């Protein structure tokens, strides 16, 4: 049963608002170690410099979108096993299925409550303490 406080999370979204919202939801869950990046490219560089346990990434972003970011993470040995949760703007079956092909761990549809986000994280990490 992993402790929420021990999980290191990278939040990737091009919107300041969403980054702040996700951060505040994560803090409510009890996660303390949170960094963020404004797009997939920056997110990937951040991961290389400071690995995380979990990436929560938006899909629709400039430069490198969420799907390509996921592929980059999975294709590169040091980041390959990092858990990846994709945020989708609406229930988009095609996107979710493609993300699944590329090895996404879970997805969350916006908007979401902290409780919903927690449930999605727990589906990946097991119950959090």
């Amino acid at each position: 049963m992993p402790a929420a406080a021990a999980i290191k999370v990278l939040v990737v979204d091009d919107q300041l608002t969403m980054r702040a919202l996700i951060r505040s939801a994560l803090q409510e869950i009890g996660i303390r170690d949170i960094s963020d990046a404004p797009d997939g490219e920056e997110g990937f560089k951040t991961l290389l410099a400071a690995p995380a346990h979990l990436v929560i990434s938006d899909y629709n972003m400039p430069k490198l979108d969420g799907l390509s970011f996921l592929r980059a993470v999975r294709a590169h040995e040091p980041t390959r096993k990092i858990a990846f949760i994709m945020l989708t703007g609406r229930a988009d079956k095609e996107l979710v299925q493609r993300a699944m092909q590329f090895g996404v761990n879970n997805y969350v549809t916006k908007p979401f409550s902290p409780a919903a986000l927690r449930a999605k994280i727990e589906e990946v990490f097991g119950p959090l303490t």
Partner: protein
Amino acid sequence: MDSFEAIKQTYFQECDELLADLEQNLLMLEAGEGDGDTINAVFRAVHSVKGGAGAFGFEALVAFAHIFETTLDDMRSGKLDPEQDVIKIMLRASDVLVDHLQAAKGQGVVDEERAATMSRELEALVGGGSNEETAPLSGESGGDEWGFKPLMFEVDAPAPAAGLTLVMRPTATMYAKGHDAVLFLRELERIAHAEIELDASALPSLDALDPEASYLTWTVRWPADVDEKAIRDVFDFVGDDCPIELKRDAPAPPHQPAVDVAAMLANIRDAAGPPVVTEEEHEEKVASPAAPGGKIESKSGAAAATIRVDLERVDRMIDLVGELVINQAMLAQRVAESETGRSSSIAMGLDELEQLTREIQDSVMAIRAQPVKSVFQRMPRLVREIAGATGKQVRLVTEGENTEVDKTVIERLSDPITHMLRNAIDHGLETPEERSASGKSPEGVVRLAALHRSGRIVIEVSDDGKGINRPRVREIAVNKGLIQPDANLSDDEIDNLIFLPGFSTASAVSNISGRGVGMDVVKRSIQGLGGRISIASVPGKGSTFTLSLPLTLAVLDGMVISAGEQTLVAPLTAIVETLRPKPQDIRPIGPNAALLAVRGAHVPLIDVGVALGLRDTPIDATAGVVLLVEGEGGARAGVVADEIQGQRQVVIKSLEANYQRVGGIAAATILGDGRVALILDVDAIIASQRDRTEAKPIALAS
């Protein structure tokens, strides 16, 4: 919840930027300049607005943004052509989106009918019926029917956080000095929980053991990030007596430059193919030939690092720097008055301080400088609305949006520009029928431009309409008793009549321009900013309004002069030259007025002391100095003062804010010696003199 409220404010701020970009990008598409990236950016803007709106529960905003987004999605995937007519609808949709956002902020009401019509128009753009997936908006879960299964995190994954390993090899000297390795280990434990391992392999057998030698080595491991400095600090006072090696465990990506991130990402991007929507098709359609790899690099290179700062903090800093400038000037004056020589180290230090102060001031001013874009961006919507209300066809062309000017000036530019645009469309442009009849394109062009010219910002609003109807303007002015029926006025003078209070050319008060605000109000508000406005008009070809403003309202280069007991500052920009007149150049006209001959031209002499009511009779101009000044529209005068004290940059302090408005005075400042000096309003002084000497029935604007 405080932080939630704070995030909401961030959201609103971000939305304002997103919507401004949205409009900008749509305008680019309308002009046929956009590419695939532009369409993507448009989509993303609406998408982002919607995403945040959902989180804060702005239902109406979400619903409208959703419809808008669906239409944009079709455009992005190439199902909908970005033709002009389509983009025009989207521009209006973006206006409605702005209304929704304002309503969400609690700053307005959405016109339900307009919003509903807009929604229908947008829906009509999406190919009828092919609109499959708009319904499932809700689902937090709902993944199962798509066969999605969450993937558990693999526990055997190597701990992603790079640990830290310390190898410590105490020397015999360290023990000899009385230090104990155990104490270090305890100290290290205290920094963070660590695994400690003893390496005793170097320990010889008992008979070979030197009791005073050191044989043991410890390896200390921390699983997660610990502060390297804290660890090194532990060994600070033993130094070389206890050598340590500190290293990050593998995988150690930070100092492993092996991966070429850009190249790798480019590969991934290439390989990733179409991201859900069929972007290949789409990219062909709007051809953006640059290779993805090169693009990433150029973009990341161009990204400028920015921070958001409260405006209040910047203003506080500007105030403080203003005080610093004054203080520095006071200090310099004290030193100059004291016994110390010019070359003393104090004086030299002060010179350097002065230079630094100037530089700080310039840098701080630069922080406040902003492109006029923020004002210009609001205008396309205004133009669309006025065009709609007047039934005229208008194309707005903007130029020089990146021209920078002080933020306070920007804020006050909005109203005059708005009014001048209204005027240009309402009064300047003809109806499409009239235009066609006179051989012009039915679509009128209104140009809004910003540029820097000799230390000022110039804003031009021009139209290609009918120009000023001079006989009509003259007739109105006569009817309203503004001029005598037999007045002999030049074309310029007639054009400038429209700046007179109470003048309005619209025969019926239209609800566009006729809001009780005339060009006189525009002119006055511009003058309040230290600006000027002028007009040039060609019948049948159109009119151009030009307004020029100082770049900043905080400092001014001035010439310090004295009149009687008073010290005054004349803005340097208004001074053409200074001179000591010869008696033969002065031609008295009447008891209290005189003209000065300067290079073949005659200018009125104005005693600044008399003009401001500091004394009753003018001094002899030959005993004082004359500042040849030029006011708005090129009117010149010779301002007579007792003497010139020097030239310096002064910090402007508003007289209105601290006292009240005084005729002939623009503002005040504090001089180096701590005295308050008044800054002259040169235009007002020229105008007051002209009224008195020439006894014209009206004060013309030029």
